[in-house]
């Protein structure tokens, strides 16, 4: 069971990706992820130039789900997961 987080956009325009086993998330990360998936943020227009955009894909016993999250709704607990690959 895992979560994959992709980050795109921003000033740098670089793709950042991170994957974690759901069991390896900290309690705060797990809580933030669960809350995000439950709330399923609706598409919203960006509030500023070159926003970051996130795509979260969760694969668990019930299948695969994808949630697109705008920058201002992405919790800080999860933003450290995607890393830019150099």
């Amino acid at each position: 069971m895992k979560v994959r987080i992709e980050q795109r956009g921003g000033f740098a325009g670089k793709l950042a990706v991170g994957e974690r086993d759901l069991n390896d998330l900290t309690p705060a990360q797990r809580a933030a992820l669960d809350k995000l998936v439950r709330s399923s943020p609706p598409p919203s227009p960006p509030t500023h130039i070159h926003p970051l955009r996130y795509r979260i894909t969760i694969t668990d016993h019930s299948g695969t789900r994808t949630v697109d999250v705008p920058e201002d709704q992405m919790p800080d607990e999860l933003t450290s997961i995607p890393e830019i690959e150099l």
Partner: protein
Amino acid sequence: MLAHHDDHHHRSCGCCFIVPPRVLRDISRDTSLDIGVRKKLQETFAETNRLKVMREAGRIATLMQARSIAPKLAETTPQEQIFDCKHTQNLPGKPIGNPQSAGEAASTVFNITRQVADFYRSVLGRNSVDGEGMDLVSSLHYRQHFDNAFWNGQQMVYGDGDGSVFTEFYNSPDVIGHELTHGVTQHESGLRYEGEPGALNESISDVFGSVFHQWLEKWPAANSDGWLIGAGIMGPKSLAKKYTCLRDMLDPGASHCLSPQPGSYDNFDPAGDVHENSGIPNRAFALFAQAVGGNAWDQAIKVWYDACTQRHLSSGATFSEFKAATLEAAAAAGVQQQAAAAWKAVNVP
């Protein structure tokens, strides 16, 4: 096909909203339609709202400035205001009373922002981002390890970077100049942040940001250091991999770029990020400035500023339309040959 109504005079007709946004929304809820079609309708509906928000942000930013019914007796000098977000998303954050003695971050942003205002005034005759002396507000330490900096229609916001790939985003003067120039573009052509106009929006910010940095360091156009974007924000991991900058306007595809870009319209990617395709007009300007010679702030940047502000650039301008505007401006300045050669080198039709 959706189109966009343009408030400015423009050389090619921008489009008008033929289908009202609420109709898009209502149709997208029709379950008898293919899911792919419904998704597209939803995306288009979201995009129209994005455009409205961006325009409204610009309109509000303009209206927020105090307007007197009496003629101005003296020009307003912009004040630099610095705030600390304390690693939250709250904007603008806590005011920093005396930024020049409040640590390196506050003093750097305060001083460089003031110098950007000086650059616009002394080189281009422009009084601040809006042309009317609006105060320049900057917020530092936005969120945690935030790999971004942005202009939100009213102010600047800087992240501290992740500390590995990127350092603090105010560490490069060109980045500060870049972001404030988004505000200038907002008050001028209002280039839409997508496709070719979006890439132009990004390029114009790189152009003015880089020339501001050159002006600050007194680097002539021939100095290749002056064409690097984001050299100061490269973190230790980036430097260890031999990346010296985020972008290189003179050599957009160079291996030392953390974000290589195309340098020719032949490689324009219609699905590409606006920060990718901006490499094409970036290279055109860098070649133009070097062909003109001397310092880019003496003549080349003034041609580009003329094109951005005096040639009725549409918010939906294409590369070709922007090229035409710069050629007009260059002709007025007696350097059309250099401009034509630069655009030819990047194959913009």
